[in-house]
């Protein structure tokens, strides 16, 4: 029996390499299951087409077209879908014992969690590419040039980064794909209770107030401003400060949920 040579001894920089190895594992999943990743990427496209062509006719947007309002909202909701897919993936790994097997390897917990978040950022990039293309096909246009457009996409990824950590935490907390389904059910009301699809001005006042302060609304409104798209004029304080809020909300969520996710991973040993 040959004794394999160990390339490196435990060191501080090793977690980056381990995280990259674990990211690669998830990318290999997509290669092994191209149909399921394709369906996940196309699902938001289906929603866009539904809202654009089925409900769009009924939506009267005072300062523009509904398509202009819808696409930034759907880009934001596509980031929210990442929360549910990460929860499900992490819960499945935990239930199937893959997490347990990885824990028998000389790999730090941070590497395991960061590997997952990197893979999800790549997923988000692919999702954004598909959604932006869909938007362009249905004649949505960013009006303000390259830098504001890239800033908007950056804010979307920043929101997704925060959602990833919530998803990792929930996946480790719920532990089985069956209980992760509850997250899938909750994602929809959170998505709708925001300014992503309709203006909070059209909702009952108390509901509109909640929708206005939803982190999704901050990002949706901020990127509408940056793209130069219709904002369906709301004049709340939150809507007028949407860009700083879109930067701040994900920071707050990450500061809460990243440590929680790490703690939950450590609790697997209890």
């Amino acid at each position, binding site marked *: *029996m*040959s*004794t*394999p*040579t*160990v*390339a*490196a001894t*435990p060191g501080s920089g*090793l977690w980056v390499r*381990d995280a990259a*190895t*674990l990211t*690669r*594992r998830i990318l*290999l*999943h997509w290669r*092994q*299951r191209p149909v399921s990743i394709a369906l996940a990427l196309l699902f938001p496209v289906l929603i866009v087409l539904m809202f654009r062509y089925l409900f769009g006719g009924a939506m009267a947007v005072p300062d523009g077209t509904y398509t202009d309002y819808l696409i930034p909202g759907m880009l934001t909701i596509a980031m929210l879908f990442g929360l549910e897919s990460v929860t499900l993936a992490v819960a499945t790994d935990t239930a*199937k*014992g*893959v997490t*347990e*097997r*990885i*824990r*028998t*390897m*000389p*790999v730090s917990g941070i590497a395991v969690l960061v590997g997952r978040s990197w893979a999800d950022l790549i997923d988000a990039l692919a999702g954004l590419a598909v959604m932006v293309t869909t938007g362009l096909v249905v004649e949505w246009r960013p009006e303000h040039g390259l830098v504001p457009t890239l800033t908007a996409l950056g804010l979307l990824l920043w929101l997704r980064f925060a959602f990833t950590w919530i998803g990792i935490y929930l996946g480790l907390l719920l532990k089985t794909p069956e209980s992760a389904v509850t997250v899938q059910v909750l994602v929809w009301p959170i998505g709708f209770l925001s300014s992503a699809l309709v203006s909070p001005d059209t909702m009952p006042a108390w509901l509109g107030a909640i929708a206005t302060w939803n982190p999704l609304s901050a990002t949706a409104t901020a990127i509408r401003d940056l793209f130069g798209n219709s904002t369906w004029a709301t004049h709340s304080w939150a809507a007028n400060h949407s860009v700083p809020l879109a930067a701040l909300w994900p920071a707050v969520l990450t500061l809460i949920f990243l440590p929680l996710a790490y703690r939950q991973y450590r609790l*697997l*040993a*209890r």
Partner: protein
Amino acid sequence: MRSDLPAGITALNLRKLYGTETGLNGFSLQVQPGTVCGLLGPNGAGKTTVLRILATLLRPDAGHASVAGCDVIRQPKQVRYRIGLVGQNASVDEILTGRQNLELFGRLGHLTARTARMRASELLDRFGLAEAADRSVAEYSGGMRRRLDLATSLVLSPPVLFLDEPTTGLDPAARIQVWAHIRELVGTGTTVLLTTQYLEEADQLADQIALIDGGRIVAEGTPDELKARVGPDRVETVTRKPTLDEVFLHLTGQAPITLRTKATEAAR
């Protein structure tokens, strides 16, 4: 570096509470380097808890343990470079192929990319998985799956191996195949701690048997010593098991059992 360290296992007075339920209650065990210890006991006796603590997956509430010369609580990473675990709860990635799994866990054990690739091919050959190497594990049979589990846990050539009910759920032919692989490993000096519900299995593989019940060792000794101490009624119920196995093998036309051994590998 590794060979300087004694590759044995020591557990001293381990305690573990689950809520108010006692998992382990003063569990102590010594396994000499290069020997096989069978941990035998009913469901809920604490077998898996012992293995999870020794494999650094679970923190004991009290007590000490060392594996291959490293403390499981203070040096978990050093322990992980030196162990393999085939568990009821620790699984390979079923979406990936057998080869991808072996390479993945080799990389996570910090082999170079090239070494991980070579090691994967070597293990696939040795465990009779070369043909299925590039198929998704979801398509594997139970026996192939268990052999891949075993192969994956050997990626770093660990001096200590933990096997948590390695043949549970396998048909007798697959079970005998897994046994042959375990024997081969023991021949190369690996220290093995295995849990099982079957006296037959412990009898086949173990140099030393420890009976666990209620989270502690209730009897310890060689298989022969223990058999001498067990009453005739209980011997009858446990010796029936291999007979049934033989009947099954005979009826399914799998007897005499062909094993992939070193001899047949060499003959290819």
